[in-house]
């Protein structure tokens, strides 16, 4: 295929590709996202490949391995279009039946359909399932239908039309205005207005004419995989966004900074860049417009702090990924001291959408100050784990109960943590908070890049704060005193409280220290690192006090505060717990009530698990 040299030839090419695909009667998409890979989707894909070719159907049925469909909990997922039949937990053995019934025939395989947990009703199509029905999938919609290895697939779905429009029908200021009117705010955490950032970088003078646009795909939050799924499943959308942004800003070179732990994202990205270059959609004289822009991939070591803008730039330059003070904005002096604009993966992916939909249409989704959608990775004590895309302004309750299906195993909701490791924990009483940048900030958390961890009554809030502070302690670069020393001392205090050694003075000190760390740290890591502590103290102070004053952990998590006792009334003297206790803390003869030596007990809880008579109690 020669380079495409005008918007008209792009359209012609699109038409050709579309007509080539008319020969397919149906498309079978297998989700190839991270979650489904873990569930064994590759084997399902190979089985389908074998089955279709054995039946001589390769020419009439399109088979593809796509990006993440989102509902990772019940993978591997297979979707058959145009009928839109949605199968879950598909195993290679199911493949012949699927092909027989739903590809050759027009029936569905009942056993593989999704069942509503409440009444067992089976749902045929994706959109009938509440998990999907309540979402607004603007960015993720193509993830389930595009083969990320194929630029043709992206083009068939309308890909690169936004770039053509931007280059030929709009001027740079017009593009920035469009992004401004759309109200796009950065999806990487802080929610900074994207247009304002672009304008500053456009206005900055480059001494040698070189400016950069960067894409932040560091995604250091444990458990978050929004950016990963976008890059893996739809890399061209990100590249197209970057090219449009580069044209608006006047940049000629771009970098995607991606952690090396995302090998599939890296491979798909490299391939996408090669393909786009091949078609003249990246490189010199894009689409014959005279605009030159190319993208490089820079691999990061995976440090959380490298997601911070100045650390990220230092890391691309090959220096230690360490933040610096930012009194001179990176829009003026960033990468290699040249004007630089950094946006998150999801922010970039929104750009083609805005150009295609038009700002006004785009701005219809969301709230007054937070427009569009946001992708969250919904994890923790929640029935439907997965990737969800919701309109801004939806409430936490709707996400957790309507989309997420609530707490499994009859558990009771306790808190939801948004914003990644340095986000805050939001209690039940605030579940009707709308999910937008400003509301989340007001309740002491933040949007962050989209992690959402649901916790139930078995989670101890002191322990959670301890866990996040411990994580951040290890991720701090160690440069500035409040972050390095302050986090360490916060951790010691939290360990004391969780260990039953805490005092009320320490609780006050913890608050004071957390505030100083927040107010005086050098970069965003330290400035937000106190959030888990401050928010849990704000909403769950009674749990802290309980640990300190009563020596009690109501969630039963903080081991030193637990006591295991044997109820002599119920104990039958079966010896079971005595034999299983790893430290030999249980005494008592056969058929006589047993006793736990509290000095020796290590609170592992094995006795509680093995007792068949309910005689062991945890207090």
């Amino acid at each position: 295929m020669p380079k495409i040299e005008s918007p008209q030839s792009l359209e012609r090419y699109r038409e050709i590709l579309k007509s080539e695909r008319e020969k397919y009667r149906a498309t079978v998409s297998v989700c190839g996202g991270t979650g489904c890979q873990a569930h064994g989707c590759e084997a399902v894909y190979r089985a389908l490949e074998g089955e279709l070719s054995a039946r001589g159907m390769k020419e009439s049925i399109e088979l593809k391995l796509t990006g993440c469909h989102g509902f990772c909990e019940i993978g591997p997922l297979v979707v058959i279009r145009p009928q839109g039949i949605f199968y879950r937990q598909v195993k290679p053995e199911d493949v012949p039946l699927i092909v027989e019934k739903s590809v050759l025939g027009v029936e569905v395989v009942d056993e593989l359909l999704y069942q509503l947990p409440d009444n067992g009703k089976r749902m045929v199509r994706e959109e009938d399932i509440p998990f999907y029905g309540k979402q607004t999938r603007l960015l993720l919609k193509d993830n389930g239908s595009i083969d990320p290895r194929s630029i043709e697939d992206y083009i068939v779905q309308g890909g690169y039309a936004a770039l053509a429009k931007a280059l030929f029908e709009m001027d740079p200021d017009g593009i920035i205005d469009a992004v401004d009117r759309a109200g796009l705010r950065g999806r990487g955490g802080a929610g900074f207005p994207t247009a304002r950032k672009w304008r500053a970088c456009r206005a900055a003078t480059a001494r040698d004419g070189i400016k950069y646009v960067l894409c932040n795909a560091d995604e250091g939050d444990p458990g978050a995989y929004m950016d990963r799924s976008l890059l893996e499943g739809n890399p061209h959308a990100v590249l197209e966004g970057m090219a449009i942004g580069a044209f608006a800003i006047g940049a000629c070179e771009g970098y995607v900074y991606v952690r090396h732990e995302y090998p599939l994202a890296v491979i798909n990205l490299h391939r996408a860049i090669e393909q786009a270059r091949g078609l003249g959609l990246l490189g010199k004289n894009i689409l014959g417009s005279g605009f030159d822009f190319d993208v490089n991939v820079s691999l990061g070591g995976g440090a959380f702090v490298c997601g911070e803008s100045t650390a990220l730039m230092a890391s691309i330059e090959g220096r230690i990924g360490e933040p610096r003070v930012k009194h001179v904005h990176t829009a003026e002096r960033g990468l290699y001291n040249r004007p630089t604009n950094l946006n998150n993966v999801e922010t970039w992916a929104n750009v083609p959408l805005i150009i295609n939909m038009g700002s006004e249409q785009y701005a219809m989704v969301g709230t007054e100050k937070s427009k569009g959608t946001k992708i969250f990775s919904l994890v923790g004590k929640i029935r439907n784990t997965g990737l969800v895309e919701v309109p801004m302004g939806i409430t936490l309750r709707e996400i957790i109960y309507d989309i997420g299906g609530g707490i499994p195993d009859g558990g009771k909701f306790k808190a939801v943590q948004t914003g990644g490791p340095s986000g805050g924990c939001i209690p039940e009483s605030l579940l009707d908070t709308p999910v937008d940048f400003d509301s989340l900030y007001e309740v002491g958390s933040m949007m962050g890049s989209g992690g959402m961890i649901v916790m139930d009554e078995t989670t101890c809030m002191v322990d959670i704060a301890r866990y996040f502070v411990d994580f951040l302690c290890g991720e701090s670069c160690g440069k500035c005193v409040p972050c390095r020393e302050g986090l360490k001392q916060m951790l010691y205090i939290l360990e004391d409280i969780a260990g039953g050694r805490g005092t009320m003075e320490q609780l006050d000190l913890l608050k004071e220290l957390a505030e100083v760390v927040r107010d005086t740290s050098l970069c965003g890591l330290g400035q937000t690192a106190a959030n888990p502590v401050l928010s849990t103290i704000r909403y769950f102070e009674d749990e802290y006090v309980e640990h300190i004053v009563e020596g009690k952990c109501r969630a039963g998590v903080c081991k030193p505060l637990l006591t295991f006792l044997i109820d002599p009334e119920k104990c039958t003297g079966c010896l079971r717990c005595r034999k299983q206790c790893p430290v030999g803390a249980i005494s008592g003869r056969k058929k006589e009530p047993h006793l736990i030596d509290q000095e020796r007990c290590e609170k592992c809880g094995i006795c509680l698990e093995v007792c068949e008579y309910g005689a062991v109690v945890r207090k």
Partner: protein
Amino acid sequence: MVRLVIDGQSVEAEEGWTVLEAARHYGVEIPTLCYAEGLSPYSACRLCTVEIISRGRSRLSASCSYPVQEGIEVRTNSQKVRRARKVIIELLLASCPNSRTLQCLASKYGVTRIRFRPEDRGCILCGLCVRMCKEQMQAGAIGFANRGTGREVAVPFHAKSEVCRECGACLYICPVCELPCPGPLQPGQLCNACLDSLQLEAFPCKE
């Protein structure tokens, strides 16, 4: 010239000065540890934290790298600043309990107890030696290794670097490697000998 207010005084500063430079020019004292004239600002100890009010918003910031801006108001001794400064001195003392410099800072700024768990590491990672070696001695024989609480000043591969000329500049500039405070101090204890003296600037035990 840039006009700004420092502790209630209207002053003029040259474009490109930092708030710290402007304050010192007018004799306003701001404590520092990781700052040294002639070395690039590093802004890591945060001891020079001041309150800056700009367009109606107040925030704490490290004065050693904050460029003076028209119309800002700087407070070097507000309650917020004093609280942050004390906690920072306490944190530093917990990591270097016997440093005389830190003990004197404690007396001077009214830190009378260390509420944190002391852990003597003998280094506050201010980076003065690293910058001195690189920027003034053009050697670059030492640098930082590791991340987070494991961070340390080190020579590459833990062997004396070939570029080290043993000039001693790193020792000269180090704020914590002087002889430990002479008092009979346990880690976590404070000397506070000059706490009550009115001439706090005198630093009697430094002589």
